């Protein structure tokens, strides 16, 4: 009995290290890409921090935050915990997962919503006190973008008839879900893109910085917000890859893990280029109008069509 628990603990410990490693490597590569690609698209060269073409950039960025004198706020500690919690339920392969839950899609989405909520709280609290007015506005901006995302996830779940991410990937051994749900994929990508722009990895966003100017934990705390910022982006991309692009399934003779990485970076690159081609998107009225008039109705139509399809196929056996 005792030995069994030990083995389980060892496996979990090994998986934690793996996940940390994956996260750290992705952090370095993505921040390097953001530095280089965004500079190239602006006709510039980008930060040449070290001799190896700017590979030292992520480490310098981290060390800079650590070197400033600062204190840590309470909300940033919450952010740190949740940006790690989010990775406990998401599988990176058939075996690499920390906590095996039956409905881990539900848990992941829940964790993500809580993480973003903490983002908002952290951004709205300053040494002057909590700014309610802007907080509610930001929550509305951010969470109205979630609605099309939730709709497309729901219609995908209807097709695959499971809430387990590993089963969803297993379902796509023959055809990827993007074939069944092309509209859902586009809506999901749009939603992820808008969230990426709002959280502002590339340039400063008003959502995260407007009240932050007087915040206490600006040194190490900023590092944490930055890391959890990346964490939200990774979550969105990983979820899209798992749900629509068949996760770690092999493609002909190519290894599934390599395919996972390839798909992740193709999506990342796409979002980065789209970001450069569009202006800042934190105009409240424009965002809300586009969202409620355009994206949400399409996702609702997509959801209804899927339901009709589901009923015809599974209840009346017509298709």
């Amino acid at each position, binding site marked *: 009995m005792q030995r069994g628990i030990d083995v389980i603990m060892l496996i979990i410990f090994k998986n934690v290290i793996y996940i940390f490693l994956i996260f750290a490597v992705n952090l370095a590569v993505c921040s390097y890409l953001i530095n280089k690609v965004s500079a190239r698209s*602006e*006709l510039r060269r980008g930060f040449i921090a070290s001799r190896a073409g700017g590979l030292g950039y992520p480490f310098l960025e981290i060390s800079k935050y650590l070197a400033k004198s600062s204190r840590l706020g309470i909300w940033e500690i919450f952010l740190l915990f949740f940006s790690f919690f989010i990775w406990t339920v998401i599988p990176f392969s058939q075996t690499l997962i920390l906590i095996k839950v039956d409905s881990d899609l539900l848990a992941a989405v829940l964790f993500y919503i809580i993480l973003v909520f903490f983002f908002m709280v952290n951004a709205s609290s300053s040494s002057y006190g909590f700014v309610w007015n802007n907080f509610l506005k930001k929550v509305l901006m951010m969470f109205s973008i979630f609605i099309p995302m939730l709709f497309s996830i729901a219609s995908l779940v209807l097709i695959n008839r499971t809430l387990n991410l590993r089963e969803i990937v297993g379902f796509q051994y023959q055809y990827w879900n993007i074939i069944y749900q092309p509209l859902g994929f586009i809506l999901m990508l749009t939603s992820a893109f808008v969230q990426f722009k709002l959280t502002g990895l590339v340039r400063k966003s008003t959502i995260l910085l407007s009240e932050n100017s007087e915040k206490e934990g600006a040194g190490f705390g900023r590092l944490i917000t930055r890391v959890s910022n990346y964490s939200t982006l990774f979550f969105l991309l990983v979820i899209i890859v798992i749900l629509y692009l068949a996760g770690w399934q092999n493609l002909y003779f190519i290894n599934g893990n390599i395919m996972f990485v390839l798909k992740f970076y193709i999506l990342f690159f796409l979002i980065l280029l789209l970001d450069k081609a569009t202006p800042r998107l*934190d105009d409240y009225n*424009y965002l809300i109008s586009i969202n409620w008039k355009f994206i949400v109705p399409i996702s609702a139509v997509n959801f209804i069509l899927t339901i009709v399809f589901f009923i015809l196929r599974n209840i009346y056996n017509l298709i």
Partner: protein
Amino acid sequence: MAKELYDGIYSSHKLVFIERIEKNIDYYLKNRILEVKRLQQELFCVLNKSSLISVLKELKENPEFDIQVINSINLFKSNGRYCLLIGLSSVANNYSMLLKVLLNSGTDDGSRQEYKEILPEIVQIFKAAEFYMSRNNLTHSYNDAVFESQVFDGFDSFDIFLSTDYDIINRAYLDTAISRVLPQNFNKDSSLFDLQTSVSRYDYSAGIFPELCLCLAVEELLKIKVSRRVQYIRILLSELSRISSHIYFVARIAKVIGADMAFNFSLLEREHVLRILEEITGSRINPNFIKIGGIKKDFKPETAANIKGSLSGILKAVYKLETLLLDNSIITAKLKNTGVADKDVALACGTTGPNLRASGVRYDIRKNRNLMLYKDLSFLVAMGKYGDCLERVQIRFREIYQSIKIIDQITSDLPDEYIKKPVDISEVELEYSEMISSVECPHGVFKTFIEMKDNRVLNLIVLGPSRNSLYFAEKILPGNRVEDVELIIASLDICSGELMS
């Protein structure tokens, strides 16, 4: 033949027009005015403080004058006496005039006290004069949002106090506390040589225009006639700096909107234009090139060919920049219908330049007056209709195209003349005299008033257009959202150097 005839009609018409108004002033205001002069297509009156209010009323209500716009009020000291300088202009009759009001008191504090007393009476006649009153009580009583001056260029010399209803602005107040300078401290009794080198700092985004303005004034005083080649070179330089200033404006707009690619591309293009300017004058933004009676140095024939060759590249790049910025539906949706300004509001604030033209008023000094040799060149005055931010951006693009057209005409046939050496300033001998001159700079009409004796400049008063734009911003901000404040103020192209005076 036809050209000479046209020139004759054109210039004489203007002169007759101003002569008529001068005669009218002599007739109507004979007892109340001490002196009337015509200084280079503008009128200049001297009067006592006691008769000011009645004169202003007469000027406003008499249809012969029909003055509706107050452009500026300045307090200054001339010949040991404190004076007010009031700039007025009429839209219907197309002329402008300056009133020099002699105040009673001779001390520093007494004059300020008088200034404070006289302003409320002026406000009752011209409402736009309230901008020049001290309104500190507004800042404390009602404001919900305060924007401190920011790092942004063009958004850095004033604070914004807003009273808001949720996110719609009710009332705005722009406070220029950090850029305010007492008028006694500026340009007192400096030599003309010093002033010539430093005057371009007033309008730093297009430094050639203050120099040009000063030189035109002094040339008029000394009665110097400048050769055609010099005039063409001056026009060439001023159009080049107009292009660079407008491109910089586009860069600022792109920065506010967050369009990174357009921002960097416009900065790159600005460098190309500045390179040409640097090749001719030797400096990027403060050229110190235009001298009294000429220019610093004539350029070689191949330079003109070079400029002409690089024009097509600039044209292409500006066109590309326009498509990059304005063919984007997100950007146009943001620009459209924000900061809409009526024709009447724009006129009442005394706004000039592209901001006024975007609201649908065809007023351009290059066309409306005999400014240098602009009448020989063919170009259009870019016009808007609705006066929103989108139109203010578009009008700058159109002006760039027109400037390129002008430069193309100049470089293709530059008259081949011998350029005389500029006048030696140290030997200038003049009686005490006053002069007004104005040029059309990228922000609006840049006007200076100078008082000179020998080669000393006793007073230089800069009446820049940016102040009027600031008041204009106060008027158009109400009704817009708080998020758009930056954008609207950036779209007015406020140059903080002019606010300093």
